[in-house]
């Protein structure tokens, strides 16, 4: 498996990750990520044919609770850590008109 990344690939990953990186950070990330991928690509040397993936050590199935209202946070508590809040709302910049 080819594990070295191109600058364009790293830019794409940064975009998917919602990280605005500088050109310098992109180049450094390219170098570091390529080294790391070279190491972790050793996974492909292992024969995993027919092995069922295990995504969680407990293998628990969905656990549901009774549909009753419990203790909840107040609106004031919820808004207390907001970078900006107005009355009973989170205050956010105008977002319509963008392409995302």
């Amino acid at each position, binding site marked *: 498996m080819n594990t070295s990344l191109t600058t364009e690939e790293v830019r794409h990953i940064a975009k998917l990750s919602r990280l605005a990186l500088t050109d310098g950070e992109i180049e450094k990330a390219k170098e570091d990520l390529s*080294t790391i991928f070279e190491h972790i690509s050793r996974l492909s040397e292992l024969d995993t044919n027919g092995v069922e993936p295990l995504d969680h050590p407990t293998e628990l199935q969905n656990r549901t609770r009774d549909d009753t209202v419990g203790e909840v946070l107040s609106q004031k508590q919820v808004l207390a850590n907001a970078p900006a809040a107005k009355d009973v709302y989170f205050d956010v910049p105008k977002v319509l008109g963008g392409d995302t």
Partner: protein
Amino acid sequence: MSTIQERDTFNAFHEYWDLENERQSETLQGMTLAVKDNIVTKTGTTTCGSKMLEGYKSPFNATVIDRLEDAGVVLVGKTNCDEFAMGSSTEHCAWGPVLNPWDRTRVPGGSSGGSAAAVAARLCQGALGSDTGGSIRQPAAFCGVVGYKPTYGLVSRYGLVAFASSLDQIGTFTTTVQDAANLVEIMAGFDELDSTCREEPAPALSKNLHDSIEGLRIGIPSQYTGSQNDPAINAAITSAINTYRELGATIIEIDLPLTEVGISTYYVLAPAECSSNLARYDGIRYGHRTDKPCKDLFELYSNTRAEGFGTEVKRRIMLGTYVLSSGYYDAYYNNALKTRRLICQEYHIAFEQCDVILGPTTPSVAFKIGEKADPLSMYLCDIYTANTNIAGICGISIPCGFSEAEGKQLPIGLHLQGSWYDDARLLRAAQMFQTATDFHTKVPECAQ
């Protein structure tokens, strides 16, 4: 007596609380305990060592905090950690690196380095940490204290800020196995707020702790010793094996061939879960938000996250995003999940042959600050600890010797791993060693 703040010359703490109530006690009632800064507390702030959460005040306590306070434990403050618990040195903390109390030019290990340093320097009697791939056991080894990661699901994760949810586990730093057993016994048990918490009643851990185990079978994997370890570490492990043999244990050679591939598996699974968990930091509801003018939501997110996160966290988010992206999902993520099952099977076979698995916690003693600038060399520190989390079994690091370097004594950790929910037996095996040795009573010069 001087306060914790006056004695903390290691940057172990981010916040100090309740100084007037500070007191030492032999019982749990009044035991002084520090809390890793990624476990939420209504008192003070919870920053995860990140600018992203600077000043964040949790409106609720983690379940473990409520249970410990109800039991009379005195919480003394929040300890520094690698940002969002990602790291093996506590150098990646927005509030500066933590220093190792045995040698201030060296790291305390990580990510729970502040908790390990606080207990090593006897600033408090115990500390909470979190362990995702070794973040309790590795710093415990580097700082010469007891670090215990319970079996996954034994202790509620509610209120532990998520890094990799299928691997994360809250555990303890203490000077004795007894204190670890006492603390985890209080914290363990079902919590309906954590849907991965085990429903069965938690096992009694402190009862019968001092009764030695008749016919204890200790497995030694050939993969855990060899030239990859410091010679002093191999010597300390050989000596620990002899101690157990003298105590009547049976030593069995076992095979864990997936030890090395565990690191590759871990550095696919943990970043994948991290990239998903850390998507919540968007600058809208809490945490940092960029001041830069943004033309749309995408820019608001991207600038906020670029400013709020440090280098290592960004690297892991990108690693995780890549291994989960279309075209690479099967080759990396799905393949790592298959390997995860093979690693579990390997442990199942091993625990049919033995009761506990013994080896070193780390291949080297505490390294110099700045020594591991290359991220991969830092990742390889987790070689003996990552598979414990991948399988979800329990593990503990206890002091078992010292290695001298530049006139300083550097602690060595003995790593014991136990089977799923076999924590009581793991702790008894660890206690047998502490009863027979005095390594855990050694303190660094600064604490004498």
